[in-house]
């Protein structure tokens, strides 16, 4: 197959799990790309023009054509660069992978955000609710090295949100949302993830990330008062 001259640009944000998951996918497939850090408090004309509907990152620009919404972008990357497939081949397995990806983004993420953003009783409730959701993920990991099975797949890439965002907030929030006694499989899975070069390369550096989470937590608390 002839090599095409590609221009791949990612409008993203260094601390965003949605932006980082796109970087994981591109890196896994060996796709060279230009990363453009966006200031979401002062959105660039390029961002507004590329994603006029949601005005959010990440946006992937492939030869100038924009694709928005991280799950849509991941599938686009998988459809376009066929090496190291992210989604399984079988239609049923693909449906299951898509289901769990949505579960992480629509259920786990939304609930976990309240752990960071609330205090007191409301936070306790959010912790409980998050744990209930994660118990389902825990079950999925029994007997598997990754959510995708033997190797890293679509759901693992999406669920890095849990491994490297939710679990990192524990240190800042001072609550063990995902204690190892309750979630041994998840902890094992995180270790497996950290053994994967692409993951190590693409997740935000821990110290800076913790500082960032701390700062965001303060600003969210101020907003909810």
């Amino acid at each position, binding site marked *: 197959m002839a090599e095409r001259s590609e221009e791949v640009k990612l409008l993203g944000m260094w601390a965003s799990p949605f932006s980082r998951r796109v970087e994981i996918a591109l890196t896994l497939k060996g796709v060279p790309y230009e990363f453009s850090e966006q200031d979401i408090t002062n959105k660039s004309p390029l961002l507004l023009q590329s994603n006029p509907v949601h005005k959010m990152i990440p946006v992937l620009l492939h030869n100038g054509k924009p694709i928005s*919404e991280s799950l849509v972008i991941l*599938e686009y990357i998988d*459809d376009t660069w066929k090496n190291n497939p992210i989604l399984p081949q079988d*239609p049923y397995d693909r449906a299951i992978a898509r289901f769990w990806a949505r579960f992480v983004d629509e259920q786990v993420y939304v609930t976990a955000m309240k752990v960071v953003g609330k205090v007191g009783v409301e936070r306790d409730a959010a912790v409980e609710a998050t744990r209930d959701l994660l118990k389902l993920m825990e079950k999925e990991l029994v007997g598997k090295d990754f959510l995708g099975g033997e190797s890293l797949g679509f759901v693992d890439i999406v669920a890095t949100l849990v491994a490297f965002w939710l679990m990192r907030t524990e240190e800042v929030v001072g609550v063990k949302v995902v204690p190892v006694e309750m979630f041994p499989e998840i902890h094992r899975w995180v270790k497996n993830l950290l053994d994967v070069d692409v993951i190590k390369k693409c997740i935000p550096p821990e110290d800076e990330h913790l500082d960032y989470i701390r700062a965001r937590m303060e600003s969210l608390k101020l907003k909810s008062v």
Partner: protein
Amino acid sequence: MADEVILLDYWPSMFGMRTRVALEEKNIKFDYREQDLFNKSPILLEMNPVHKKIPVLIHNGKPVCESLIQVEYIDETWPGGNSFLPSDPYQRAQAKFWGDFIDKKVYGPTRLIWGAKGEEQEAGTKEFIEMLKMLESELGDKTYFGGETFGYVDIAMIGFYCWFDVLEKCGNFSIEAECPKLIAWAKRCMKRESVAKSLPDSDKITKFVPELKKKIGIE
């Protein structure tokens, strides 16, 4: 070997309608099983333990949940006939983007229109019209969202059409006045057998909403 296809559904659900339309488009024989959402059946709870929601598509005993995931699954599993998604990756991504938009931005406001009152309802109406206008702009002068062929985005949106009458009555507005091209598109879709078979009459939905409000305990 014959396929066994079961659909656990609820007749007024615009999400269930997506799956019905997709199955009909591909001429797949299926066993439609009406669910009582106020008294959930063992099969529903077993097949969708995570969300306990309809629609659930059960293919040879294996459940697929979430309506747009079901539409894609149907397209991938029964590839003959008309494809719901384009083969070009960029066009596929655009279609999925708009399907996601409908789920995230169009559905929410409809609940406020029929379920809320006063300022909340007004805000819902305003938001809904804004979102419909975005969709209409995406449709442009095309026959369907996918161009000449009826596809994924059309399937994602068409179920809302039978709810338009009740939404207009509750919100006191006219969708046709705001989005004439979208109404023209919907009428084109209604001419398809798959759609006509899968959507209930508008007046059934209109009669149903006050009953629904009573059931869920809102005035």
